């Protein structure tokens, strides 16, 4: 853009006279913002007289190019200086090109940091608000259990729990096999094959079964929660529920939370069994530890405490997965693509949180010596 000349700019003028638009004055960003757009509204004559046109920059040129679009036909320019004609051509060619993003140029690190902080704070506030609302909704449901919606609750139990049995079972079984095989080979070199029982049972019961189940459920059920609520937001069904007089949280979130808190511990117990069974299978097949020996050793090694450490984490993970899934669902805004995006975010966040919280539990348990 040309620099503003030192002398005050003549105001931009446009007069419609005798079938032509007479342009005069400075058509620059400063002059135009000071004096406003001088072009009259409505359709313009098709002859532009630029002989009295003073300064011109891209802003003025863009305005004139827009004005050309409002004429009935092609515009005939008169008295146009060469440099102005060039500028107009430039603007005509590039006006539809995607402008670089306003802040893409060079934003300071500090500005980026500040913007990011604000965004995260806003997000934290939203999460807290949702958490609070969900807590209130759950509390209400616990106070008035007869108002709890049984049908959606049972439907959720079936979908999140019963229908997940095959995949949870198979994967736990395979995980048991892998742990027993990898560990057993090391133990065999020391002639301590029997310790494969300790390895498999403690690993499965304390950690692997619950983590594996939580990850599967996050992928299967958490994502489904987000997709369902997100789709309902896109189709305005959530708003429709509100106008009918229903709290969307009561109908959509509370049954999901309750169902998952109920189902995940049960799935974990099932995963415990399948995982230990997988280990038992390999111990017998590869390391000569028979089922009877395995079970005898298991009785000596495993106490109720180990079992509870694993299963006790399940309701916490269930709560995390359900809350993240529902929260991300409510965060959907816009169209169908937002549903997909938010579903991905939901799965990643849920798995991330499950593993972080599991690590926190490990620290806690080791401090408590359980």
């Amino acid at each position, binding site marked *: 853009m040309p620099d503003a000349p030192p002398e005050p700019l003549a105001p931009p003028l446009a007069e419609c006279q*005798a079938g032509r638009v007479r342009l005069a004055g400075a058509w620059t960003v400063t002059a*135009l913002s000071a004096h406003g757009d001088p072009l009259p509204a409505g359709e313009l004559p098709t002859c532009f007289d630029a002989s009295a046109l003073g300064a011109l920059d891209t802003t003025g040129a863009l305005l004139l190019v827009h004005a050309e679009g409002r004429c009935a036909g092609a515009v005939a320019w008169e008295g146009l200086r060469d440099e102005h004609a060039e500028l107009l051509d430039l603007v005509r060619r590039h006006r539809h090109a995607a402008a670089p993003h306003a802040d893409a140029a060079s934003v300071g690190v500090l500005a980026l940091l500040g913007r990011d902080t604000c965004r995260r704070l806003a997000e934290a506030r939203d999460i807290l608000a949702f958490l609070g609302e969900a807590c209130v909704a759950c509390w209400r449901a616990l106070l008035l259990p007869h108002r709890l919606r049984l049908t959606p609750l049972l439907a959720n139990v079936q979908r999140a729990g019963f229908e997940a049995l095959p995949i949870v079972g198979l994967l736990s079984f395979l995980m048991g096999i892998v742990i027993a095989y990898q560990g057993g080979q090391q133990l065999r070199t020391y002639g301590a094959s029997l310790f494969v029982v300790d390895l498999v049972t403690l690993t499965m019961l304390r950690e692997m079964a619950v983590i594996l189940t939580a990850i599967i459920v996050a992928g299967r059920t958490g994502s489904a929660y987000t997709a369902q609520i997100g789709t309902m937001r896109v189709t305005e069904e959530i708003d*429709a529920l509100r106008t009918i007089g229903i709290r969307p949280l009561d109908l959509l979130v509370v049954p999901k939370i309750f169902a998952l808190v109920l189902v995940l511990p049960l799935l974990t117990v099932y995963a415990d069994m399948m995982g230990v069974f997988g280990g038992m299978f390999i111990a017998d097949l590869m390391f000569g530890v028979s089922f009877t020996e395995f079970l005898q050793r298991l009785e000596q090694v495993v106490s109720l405490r180990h079992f509870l450490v694993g299963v006790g984490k399940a309701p916490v993970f269930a709560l995390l997965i359900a809350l993240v899934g529902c929260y991300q669902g409510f965060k959907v805004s816009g169209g169908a693509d937002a549903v997909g995006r938010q579903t991905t975010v939901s799965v990643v966040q849920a798995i991330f949180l499950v593993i972080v919280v599991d690590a926190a539990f490990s620290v806690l348990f080791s401090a408590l010596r359980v």
Partner: protein
Amino acid sequence: MSIEIRNITKRFGAYTALDEVSLDVPAGELVALLGPSGCGKTTLLRIVAGMERPDAGQVLFHGEDATDRHVRERQVGFVFQHYALFQHMSVFENVAFGLRVRPRATRPPEAEIRERVMKLLALVQLDWLAGRYPAQLSGGQRQRIALARALAVEPRVLLLDEPFGALDTQVRKELRRWLRRLHDEIHVTSVFVTHDQEEALEVADRVVVMNRGHIEQIGTPDEVYEHPATPFVYQFLGNVNLFHGRVHAGVADVGGLRVPSPEHDAVEHAAALAYVRPHDIELSRQPGGGALRGTVAEVRPLGPIVRLEVIAAPTGETVEVEITRERYQAETFRSGEVLYLRPRQLRVFVNPAANAAPEPARDFAI
């Protein structure tokens, strides 16, 4: 039940969606909020419904302040542009849902729910579809079910957000006549949002024309069409020809035409805009007092009317003129012919810079 809207302001960040809007909707009326997209009409409707909180101002239902009342307690029926029917429920269940989910104390018995739902489905003339699912219905049918669902909870106010926006022209025309008849039958205070001026003029008792978060004019369909209060209303309601001119001491000079404009008696030498509807221009082959000379540039027959584009001689501006097909067949105007234009009705507005509505893109606004 009447609705009063008092000085509602709503901002989204730096953008002001509604600026001190006030509006009264008397009980039993059907009011249209009409305006281009982004004028704040849907925001206003959502504020009335309670789905959006105003930054300032009040909403009164029947004289009672409802601003802080939750949407659940406002007893409004809301119809969405994209129907928002519950996909996994049958038509019957959709309509019955609002009654089914009530707490036991206020929930009607099952037999009554059934009777009421079937009555509503009969009202929207779709009782034969009770067992179907929304996905199996056409757009027009879905919207009627959505209306039945909104009416099921016996709302005190019915709010419709571009109810026919997603439908094709034929269905839309049919449905809006049907909505008008339905409203005459049940007389629920209703507000509907539309950007289609034809729809607003045809259906509503009163039309509220909005632009950029302001109300431009409130009036019956006749009033807003015949006596537009501002240039914006003139341009938004139908086609219009715009002339630039000057006004001085009660006389407007529009393209060489001198038109008395007594309402601007006190104005001296001001720029003026004059609006004429295309069908308010008389065409003739004879010159005469108060006529503009022009050359026919194009003749376009459009169904029942014929539209002529005439280049007015003094300014070179294109003027659109609409005449009936019979007239056209009797006179057979041809392109290239010289004609004289005589506006039958012309509105003059002073000072276009301050109140001209559709300004060109102000890219340089800083």
